[in-house]
């Protein structure tokens, strides 16, 4: 199997998952609206003082992004598992790790990327300055792929398991803690004038680590689930 055909297979999986999502848009949109609604509820619960909202904005946006990603994890492998596609992937001449990486990238394009692009609009509700909005978007762009990569391991482990949907949150949310700390921390550091570079570099380091280990662990977990 040459390198070019591996990339061709990777591209094919991404295109396929995007095509399937286009045919069934409601799945993607539900997650997005969940994100919007959760973020908008916080001012109602806390009160409209702008100084307070500005202070909690990074945390609120990031926690909401975590929860929205969690919600979308179930559809990552469940449908392919149910209709036998996952078995075919596991038996493909293309290494399963490559196909899994493609699925995770597609998952991020359909959940993390829209969240990151939507976040500045919601940030305006919390009176964030333009500079901080930029940092928020960058932190989400680097951080949400990590969420997809770690989440894929959880989704694979709970595949076809009783109460898998709730269980996946129990497994994955504690592992999301570092991303939350440095993601929200980046925006906060920018707000307090400390500069967000350190936080963002650490997030990038997490991304490198997750990109290396995540697909491997997901592949092992999927083979266990299929057995």
């Amino acid at each position: 199997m040459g390198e070019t055909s591996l990339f061709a297979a990777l591209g094919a999986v991404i295109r396929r998952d995007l095509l399937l999502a286009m045919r069934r848009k409601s799945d993607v949109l539900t997650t997005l609206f969940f994100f919007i609604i959760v973020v908008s509820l916080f001012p109602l619960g806390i009160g409209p003082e702008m100084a307070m909202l500005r202070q909690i904005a990074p945390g609120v946006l990031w926690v909401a992004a975590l929860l929205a990603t969690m919600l979308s994890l179930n559809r990552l492998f469940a449908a392919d598992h149910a209709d036998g596609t996952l078995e075919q992937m596991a038996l493909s001449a293309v290494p399963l790790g490559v196909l899994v990486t493609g699925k995770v990238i597609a998952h991020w394009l359909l959940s993390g990327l829209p969240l990151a692009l939507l976040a500045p609009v919601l940030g305006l509700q919390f009176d964030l300055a333009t500079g901080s909005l930029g940092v928020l978007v960058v932190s989400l762009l680097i951080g949400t792929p990590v969420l997809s990569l770690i989440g894929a391991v959880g989704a694979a482990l709970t595949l076809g398991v009783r109460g898998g949907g709730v269980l996946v949150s129990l497994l994955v949310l504690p592992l999301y803690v570092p991303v939350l700390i440095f993601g929200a921390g980046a925006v906060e550091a920018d707000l307090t004038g400390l500069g967000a570079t350190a936080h963002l570099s650490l997030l990038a380091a997490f991304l490198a680590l997750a990109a290396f280990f995540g697909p491997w662990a997901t592949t092992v977990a999927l083979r266990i689930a299929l057995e």
Partner: protein
Amino acid sequence: MILSKPRSVGVVHNCPMLEASNLECVRGEKSLFRGLSFRLEAGACLMVQGANGSGKTSLLRMLCGLAQPAQGEIRWDGEPIRKLAEEYRGELLYCGHAGAVKDDLTALENARISATLAGAPVDEAAARQALRQLGLKGREDLPARVLSAGQRRRVALTRLLLEKRRLWVLDEPLTALDKAAVATLCGVIDAHLAAGGMAVLTSHQDLPLAATHVAQLRLD
């Protein structure tokens, strides 16, 4: 079921060979079969028969490497399939109960995408040709959602025509197929065997194959 002597079926020698030795399958706490050995050579077909729950699907999944036998080993060309991994999967085509057909994709998209996922992309003309051969002319661009169960099965079976694989492992390929489709499928399998391919399959119905090297394996 206990088969002490390995059975050997086939005509052409010095070709890759599928060999199962002393397999045991355990489901829950029950041993479904043990001491199962057979050899399958080029041009040969193995029909696995047995009642529901006798371990037919489990055996087929073991042959694919999806499940591990509790005991015993499966070898392809003398090498354990665990070690061969992708190399073996490149020789293998498995068609299970679930057809891996996506409701939201058209018949044509399903055929092309499953070939690509298997690592053997095909162009549109080849995919259309395969769909026509299986009697889906005029339905190539309909979403699989609106197709009947038999038609969806045919979409799943286009992989037999599109992926060039030496070993076919087919679990109940006749399910939901009508008479004409069964005849077509038998023709496809016969052509595969005549060209030196191998097949392992299960079926509750009779499969009127013309091939002569068909062995029966009963799991009871």
